[in-house]
C-alpha cells in the first residue's frame, strides 16, 4: 500500500476503534463502572478512612492500571476474534502505523477513565485538589497516559496472537507498567500535597514518566511488527 500515508492508516485504525467503542458501549456500560468499582473495593479492603486520603494517589493509578488491562484485552479481542489483525498484517499494512492507531485509541479511553477516577477519588476518598498543583497534575496524567498506552499496545499486540491471552497480558503489563505507577503516584502526591509534599518534588518524577513514555513509544513503533509477526 505504498500510496497510503502512514498517518491516514493510523487515523483509520483510530476511527475504527472509536466507532466500535461507540457502537458496543463497552466503555460507558462496563469499563467505567468497573474502575469505579475497583476504587470502592480498595476503600472496603482498607476501610480506614484516615489512611485512604494518604494512599489515594496510589489507588487511583492502580485502578487506572487494572482498567487499562481490561480495555486492552477488549481492544485486541476485537482484532483477533475473526483474524482482522492477521489480515492487516497479511495485507502488508505498516505495523507501526497500526501501533500508533491502537495507541491513540487507548490514550483516548484512558483519559476518560482518569478524569472520572480523579473525580471518584474526590468524592470517595475526600481528596482535595489545590490550584497550584493543577499544572503538575495534568502534565503528569498526560505523560503517564502516553507511557501506559504504549506499554498496553505493545503487549496487547503480542498477546493477541497467542492462546493464553487473558492471563498473559496482565503478567506482562503489570511489572513493566509499575514504574509509571510509582512515578505517577509520587507526582500526583506532590500535586495534591499528600502528606505535606511540595510541588517541586513532583517535577523529577514527571521527567521519569516522560522518559518512559518516549522510550516505549519508540520501542512500540519499531517492535510492533516483529511482535505480531507469525
Amino acid at each position, binding site marked *: 500500500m505504498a500510496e497510503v500515508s502512514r498517518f491516514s492508516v493510523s487515523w483509520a485504525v483510530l476511527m475504527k476503534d472509536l466507532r466500535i467503542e461507540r457502537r*458496543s458501549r463497552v466503555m460507558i456500560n462496563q469499563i467505567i463502572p468497573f474502575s469505579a468499582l475497583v476504587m470502592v473495593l480498595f476503600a472496603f479492603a482498607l476501610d480506614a478512612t484516615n489512611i485512604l486520603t494518604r494512599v489515594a494517589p496510589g489507588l487511583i493509578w492502580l485502578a487506572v492500571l487494572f482498567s487499562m488491562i481490561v480495555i486492552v484485552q477488549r481492544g485486541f479481542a476485537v482484532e483477533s476474534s475473526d483474524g*482482522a489483525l492477521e489480515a492487516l498484517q497479511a495485507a502488508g*499494512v505498516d505495523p507501526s502505523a497500526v501501533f500508533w492507531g491502537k495507541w491513540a485509541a487507548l490514550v483516548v479511553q484512558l483519559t476518560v477513565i482518569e478524569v472520572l477516577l480523579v473525580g471518584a477519588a474526590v468524592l470517595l476518598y475526600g481528596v482535595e485538589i489545590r490550584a497550584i498543583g493543577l499544572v503538575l497534575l495534568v502534565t503528569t496524567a498526560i505523560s503517564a497516559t502516553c507511557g501506559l498506552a504504549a506499554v498496553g499496545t505493545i503487549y496487547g499486540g503480542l498477546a493477541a496472537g497467542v492462546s493464553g491471552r487473558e492471563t498473559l497480558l496482565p503478567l506482562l503489563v503489570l511489572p513493566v507498567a509499575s514504574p509509571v505507577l510509582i512515578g505517577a503516584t509520587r507526582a500526583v502526591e506532590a500535586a495534591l500535597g499528600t502528606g505535606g509534599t511540595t510541588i517541586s518534588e513532583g517535577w523529577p518524577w514527571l521527567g521519569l514518566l516522560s522518559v518512559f513514555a518516549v522510550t516505549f513509544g519508540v520501542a512500540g513503533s519499531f517492535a510492533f511488527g516483529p511482535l505480531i509477526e507469525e
Partner: protein
Amino acid sequence: MNSSPTSATESVIDIQGLVVVLGGYPALAGADLCVARGEIVLLSGPNGAGKTTLLRACAGMVRPVRGSGQVLGFDLIAEREAIRSGVGMVGHRNGLYTDLTVEENLRFWGAMSGADSDEVAAAASAMEVDGRLASVPVGRLSAGQRRRTALAVLVVRRASLWLLDEPHTGLDAAGRDQLDDLLRRATLSGATVLFSSHEADRAARLATRSVRVEAGRVEVGDG
C-alpha cells in the same frame, strides 16, 4: 501494484523445495510451484495435504525452514513486506470486524489500500453485499454473507496476486458464479489467482490449470 517487478519476468510464483514446519510437524515437505501471470491455478488435494500452508507461505505469512522462492518477483524470505502489499489473501477466517457494518468494513479497507468510495461501492455490488446488507453489522450476517463481504474486501484491495483458500465455501449458487467471473475478470486485467477447493468439477471449470497437493508436496496434474 503495477510497480511490482513481475512486469519484467513472467512467473508470478516460483518456489522450490519449500519446507514449512508447524508445531514440529512438516506441513510442507519440499513443495515446488510455478505460476505464470494471468493463470487461475487450482490447488486440490486431501485434507491435511498442505494447501492452506502452501497458500500462507506464498503470502509470506509463514516462514519456511528450507527452500527458496520468489513471489511477484520479490524474494520470499527477504522481501516479505513487498510481497504482502501485492497479495490479497482470504483464508478460512474472514478477517472482518464483526461490530462494524459491511460498509464500514469496506470503507476501512478502502482507507488501508487507498481505494475511493466508488471503488468500494463497486466492490460491494460485485459481491452483492450492498443495499440492505451494507448497513448490517457483520456479526449479524449469515455465514455466506460474511464470506461475500470478505471477498468484497479483497476486491477493494486490488491485489495483483489473489490467494484464496476454499473461497467458494458458504457461497450460494449465484455467489459462486459471481466469484468465478470476478476472478476471470481480475486475471484479464493482469492479476493472477491461486485457489484451493474440494469441489473438483466446479473448480476445474474455473481453473486454467490444476495442481494436486499431497502429503506436503505438489504433484503437477493435468489442467
